[in-house]
């Protein structure tokens, strides 16, 4: 019976396809793009049929074919019928594939083509986007700075606009506070770098064709020493893919596992399918190419320091933010911003969503204090008292505040008694009983430059008013002072300050109105950290929901080693390195040292680079030049969208397209994983269908397609794609989530977004730490910590050994008891690169702070000849070149004979960077303020190999040293430099002129 049914279905297929050809132009196009003989049978051959696809024609016969290109064999008719159902259960399909109940053998190219053909029967009929009255077609996309409508006409983007919510989108929340009612604007507020999307797509820096370095011969001289010097020639995709696939095989046979190293940045264009934790991880796992191990770059001090006092390891030591926006509006008297500039960082991924709410705080009469070497964007907007602290000395200020609290009795003694341990020892240290130095306001003044009287005023205010502490860009950590030699001390002190003021009591918490918006966070949609389509269940957060909710083939990398990102150049040039891991599953995971390479695995001999601006984001980044030119590296492949940063060091360039040229799907501000419920920064929870708005430019292809093409050459194509193109994957992600309860797939595809309704006032989340303050079981909706990490019972107490906030952490006593750079008792230890650095500080007297950028998302949207370059607070134009901006105090400028917009050479022993100087009183004396993460690396080398850059790579100047031994943590904000007027001799360097020509030549080629 089943066999008879199967025979009928198999025989009917060509007729169904015939209908599809007439109705479905996409199907017809796909049909004509390939061909071959496909044979479908039961394993015992009791049912068999083959199909011949040739030049757009379809024919079929019952029985076996002598030489099928692809043979599909089902275990039995029951399996076949389940597999071939129009709406087959994806879990069943994965089960059949994984357990050999269906086997597909033959030519991988034909197999991938045929799978695509079958899928296109459905997907080719899907309607995407909305026709507008003005003749444009409105698509939707998502960016790291918020979602956009993308208006397209004649295959070209006309404009991109923020999304105004429609009338039938769910009603917005409202908050009542101090007799007033507040409601957010019904628009998704975006960042300026989102609005630059069109300019990025059509940038003259786009890579539009595969290219090969002219003096790189994979079969002969490879000339690694010329990387970054010699030019490129255009090659075909076939040639490029053959070279890359061929090298993969050669590497594995020559060196064994682990020699192909994948290097990439920490971020990618938004999208759950195309993210690096998704497609790239799937690719690298199947290829057997190890990926990098990051340190928690923007979290450092919280992960390696703060968490030991109170837990939250699964947030990498950052506090949560549930319910805090409303609590802040209703209860709080004062917000202390400490190394915190949410207007610049947009919290994290949240576009302009927080600005309106911070203006509410102002309207409500909440008082503001800003502790920062820079009178930053947020301070400029809100006003308030500015304490221009010297970089890296913040901890002295924090301890002096605690000194005032202790001596004047201005702390919550009851909370300290009930909810903390170790306070007596801490108090003895603060009062100087332990080391003979009382941490008084006068003591700190010498360190920080903040007058003692101001510290006394602040401490008294803080000790008597309900205060929110906004630490870092999110208000709950992130960036700034946690990325310095003293980063851990600072973050630890932030927790200890709150421990003394009754963290969790009404009006007392972490935040700055950026997070803790009353959204309904419970409906599930995966964040990018949940691994997307990677199939990986060990290197991302996919195992929590994604792997269960979206059945897909599990992938695992046999070359399991991870190259530490900040040590990648040492790994390449010396062959080994050791590091401490980023693993937030428990506080103790960070104590173990890991060696690279893993025993039996190879050191790197091939670099597969994905994205190309690590010069802007890696400390002391001229190290990367040596890395790229090291003779141990046989090939450097760069898969990138733009010619930027390190693309110029590649042997083979594979041009990728932008996210608006391929389909993807994502939630606005949704990353999940260690940033659980990160979307609680936006005013309306929104999930976006990221349409393929236009065709890829030139010969560029989506990352996914490039990976699929390489793997198909190696026979892994069907395994990689599971027969799906990106749009099919988007549907699988959609179906894995709770979205189908809110919108149908076809409506979602057409409209392009869905807004999830907010919580009703009576079901809003409880306030972060209120349970702890009031002595109840934990009640905030986060799966943190792991159940096994509770001490007295499930949901009872914090993750620490005592379940309380520990002034002297037990985890450090156990795991790292004798480390003077991270002492159990959080002593003030001056920065190893700072004003106490003796001769170094004399030679390089200025302290450079390079924080997360405002006008670009890290490197994204910087450079590329776009309008972001024309923002004077980002780059300034001089002699036709857009120079990175460094902000300098007026007095420091006067001493150096510098005026506004002058070109200035910042330098130390590591390198020199030419910037334009912005002179004002908005920066503390002796400090320089700039942004990290330029996308440009535009350099010359002198005879001694010293690097001078005019791209704005501030990280050429920053130290590569870890914050403290026992950790792998970056410390870019401990950076001494000197500044002098730049004489402008750039054009006289012949080599540079040549390399400038080289860049132009690349574009002439296109």
């Amino acid at each position, binding site marked *: 019976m089943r066999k008879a049914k199967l025979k009928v279905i198999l025989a009917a297929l060509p007729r169904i396809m015939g209908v599809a050809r007439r109705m479905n132009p996409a199907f017809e196009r796909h049909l004509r793009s390939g061909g071959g003989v496909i044979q479908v049978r039961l394993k015992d051959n009791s049912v068999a049929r083959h199909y011949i696809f040739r030049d757009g024609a379809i024919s079929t016969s019952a029985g076996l074919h002598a030489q099928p290109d692809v043979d599909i064999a089902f275990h039995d008719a029951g399996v076949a019928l389940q597999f071939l159902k129009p709406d087959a259960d994806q879990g069943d399909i994965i089960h059949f594939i994984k357990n050999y109940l269906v086997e597909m053998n033959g030519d991988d190219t034909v197999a991938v083509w045929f799978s695509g053909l079958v899928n296109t029967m459905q997907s080719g009929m899907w309607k995407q986007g909305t026709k507008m009255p*003005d003749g444009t077609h409105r698509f939707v996309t998502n960016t790291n700075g918020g979602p956009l409508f993308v208006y397209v006409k004649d295959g*070209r983007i*006309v*404009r*991109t*606009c*923020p999304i105004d919510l429609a009338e039938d989108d769910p009603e917005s929340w409202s908050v009542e506070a101090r007799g007033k009612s507040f409601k957010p*604007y019904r628009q998704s*507020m*975006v*960042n*300026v770098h989102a*609005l*630059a999307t*069109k*300019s990025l797509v*059509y940038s003259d820096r786009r890579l539009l064709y595969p290219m090969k370095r002219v003096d790189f011969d994979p079969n002969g001289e490879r000339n690694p020493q010329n990387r970054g010097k010699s030019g490129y020639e255009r090659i075909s995709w076939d040639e490029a893919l053959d070279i890359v696939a061929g090298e993969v095989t050669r590497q594995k046979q020559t060196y064994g596992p682990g020699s192909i190293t994948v290097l990439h940045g920490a971020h990618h264009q938004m999208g759950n399918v195309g993210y690096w934790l998704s497609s790239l991880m799937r690719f690298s796992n199947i290829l057997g190419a190890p990926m990098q191990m990051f340190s928690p770059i923007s979290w450092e001090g919280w992960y390696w320091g703060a968490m030991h006092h109170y837990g939250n390891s699964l947030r990498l030591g950052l506090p949560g933010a549930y319910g805090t926006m409303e609590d802040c509006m209703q209860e709080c008297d004062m917000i202390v911003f400490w190394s915190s500039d949410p*207007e610049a960082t947009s919290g994290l991924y949240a*576009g*302009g*969503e927080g*600005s*309106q709410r911070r*203006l509410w705080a102002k309207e409500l009469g909440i008082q503001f204090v800003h502790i920062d070497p820079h*009178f930053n*964007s947020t301070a*400029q*907007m809100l*006003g308030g*008292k*500015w*304490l*221009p602290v010297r970089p890296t000395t913040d901890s002295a200020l924090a301890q002096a505040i605690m000194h005032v609290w202790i001596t004047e009795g201005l702390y919550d003694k009851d909370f300290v008694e009930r909810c903390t341990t170790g306070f007596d020892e801490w108090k003895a240290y603060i009062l100087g009983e332990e080391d003979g130095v009382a941490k008084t306001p006068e003591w700190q003044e010498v360190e920080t430059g903040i007058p*003692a*009287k*101001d510290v*006394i*005023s*602040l401490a*008294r*205010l803080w000790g008597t008013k309900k205060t929110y502490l906004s630490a870092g860009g999110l208000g709950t950590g992130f960036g700034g002072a946690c990325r310095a030699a003293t980063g851990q001390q600072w973050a630890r002190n932030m927790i200890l300050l709150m421990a003394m003021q009754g963290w969790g009591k009404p009006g007392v918490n972490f935040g700055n109105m950026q997070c803790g918006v009353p959204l309904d966070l419970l409906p599930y949609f995966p964040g990018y950290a949940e691994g997307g389509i990677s199939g990986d269940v060990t290197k991302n957060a996919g195992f929590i929901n994604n792997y269960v909710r979206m059945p897909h083939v599990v992938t695992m990398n046999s070359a399991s080693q991870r190259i530490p990102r900040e040590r990648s150049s040492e790994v390449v040039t010396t062959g080994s390195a050791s590091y401490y891991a980023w693993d937030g599953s428990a506080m103790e995971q960070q104590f173990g040292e890991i060696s690279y390479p893993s025993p039996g695995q190879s050191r790197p001999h091939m670099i597969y680079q994905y994205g190309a601006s690590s010069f802007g984001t890696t400390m002391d980044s001229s190290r990367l030049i040596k890395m790229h030119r090291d003779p141990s590296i046989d090939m450097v492949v760069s898969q990138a969208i733009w010619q930027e940063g390190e693309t110029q060091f590649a042997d083979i360039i594979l041009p990728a397209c932008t996210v608006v040229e391929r389909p993807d799907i994502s939630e606005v501000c949704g990353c999940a994983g260690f940033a659980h419920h990160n979307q609680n920064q936006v005013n309306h929870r929104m999930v976006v269908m990221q349409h393929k708005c236009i065709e890829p430019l030139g010969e560029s292809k989506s990352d996914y397609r490039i990976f699929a093409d390489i793997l198909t050459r190696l026979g892994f194509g069907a395994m990689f794609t599971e027969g799906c193109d990106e749009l099919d994957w988007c549907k699988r992600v959609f179906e894995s989530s709770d979205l189908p309860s809110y919108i149908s797939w076809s409506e979602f595809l057409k409209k392009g977004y869905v807004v999830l309704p907010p919580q009703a006032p009576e079901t809003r989340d409880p306030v972060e730490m209120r349970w702890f303050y009031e002595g109840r079981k934990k009640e905030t909706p986060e799966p943190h910590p792991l159940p096994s990490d509770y001490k007295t019972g499930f949901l009872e107490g914090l993750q620490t050994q005592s379940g309380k906030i520990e002034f002297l952490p037990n985890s450090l006593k156990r795991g790292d008891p004798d480390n003077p750079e991270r002492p159990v008792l959080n002593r003030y230890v001056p920065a190893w690169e700072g004003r106490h650095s003796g001769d170094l500080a004399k030679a390089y007297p200025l302290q450079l702070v390079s924080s997360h950028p*405002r*006008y670009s998302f890290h490197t994204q949207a910087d450079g590329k*000849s*776009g*309008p*972001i*370059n*024309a*923002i004077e*607070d980002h780059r300034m*134009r001089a002699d036709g070149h857009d120079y990175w901006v460094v902000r300098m105090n*007026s007095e420091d400028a006067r001493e150096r004979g510098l005026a506004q917009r002058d070109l200035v050479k910042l330098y130390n022993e590591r390198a020199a960077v030419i910037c334009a100087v912005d002179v*004002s*009183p*908005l920066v503390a004396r002796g400090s320089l303020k700039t942004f990290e993460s330029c996308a440009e690396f535009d350099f010359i080398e002198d005879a001694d190999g010293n690097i001078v850059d005019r791209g704005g790579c501030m990280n050429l100047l920053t130290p590569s040293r870890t914050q403290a031994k026992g950790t792998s943590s970056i410390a870019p904000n401990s950076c001494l430099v000197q500044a002098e007027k730049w004489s402008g001799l750039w054009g006289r360097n012949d080599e540079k002129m040549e390399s400038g020509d080289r860049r132009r030549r690349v574009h002439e080629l296109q």
Partner: protein
Amino acid sequence: MKKWNLVIDVAACTNCNNCAVATQDEFAGNSFPGYSGPGAPDVRTLDVDRHVRGEGAMVDVHYVPRMCNHCDDAPCMKVGGDAISKRDDGIVIIDPEKGKGRHDLVDACPYGAIKWNDAEQLPQNWIFDAHLIDQGWTEPRAAHVCPTRALRALKLEDAEMSALAQAEGLAVLKPELNTGPRVYYRNLGPALSQFIGGNVTADGGNVEGADVRLLRDGKEIAATETDAFGDFRFDQVANGSAGYSLHAKRDGQGAGQVDIEGAVETSRVVTVVLN
């Protein structure tokens, strides 16, 4: 006849630059015949000026978005001939055909609001996105993308707009030129004036709640109280004005006085010691 006006709240502008870049996005690679030629990455017809005041730890910053004022008595039109026209709805347009090569128009605007697009050889202004307005848009893109709604586009009768300007205390740039700008500002005062501020101390500590008075030529003109940090500030002191002195006192902590030397060309930050 209702006409377009733009009202900008300087206090709500954070220098995010969304307005400027959205405007550039609108014209990047786009030509709108009769309205505008294509823009260029380095041509900002809408720009944001920064005004920094103060010194030491007492500073403030105000951002003033600037663009074509769509003046009712537009100086550019006096030299523009048929290259520049004013629409019935108040919007001033430089014709992208007739304006070609007219670099002279750049100098005709006393506000510096006409920019030269070298690639296109065109003088360009911010056209209020008239091409979108004519399609039914209710605001230009610059206002649409503002996260704090610092920019408001209003289509009003001139009498209504005057009443609104009066009621909300709106100002225009360079009113002395009498060009009749249609772009109005709220909270513009601090950006165009100075402050006299400082700190009151006694016995080396900050004095909260001190009574501080600002005198000009010996006559009291304003009074305030110090905050928890002992700080005070008198805003909107006219540029270049002179003759000021400060008197501060607090019961039990004494009194102090400081004369402000010379004319106030830049904001002054002083310390008043009570004894």
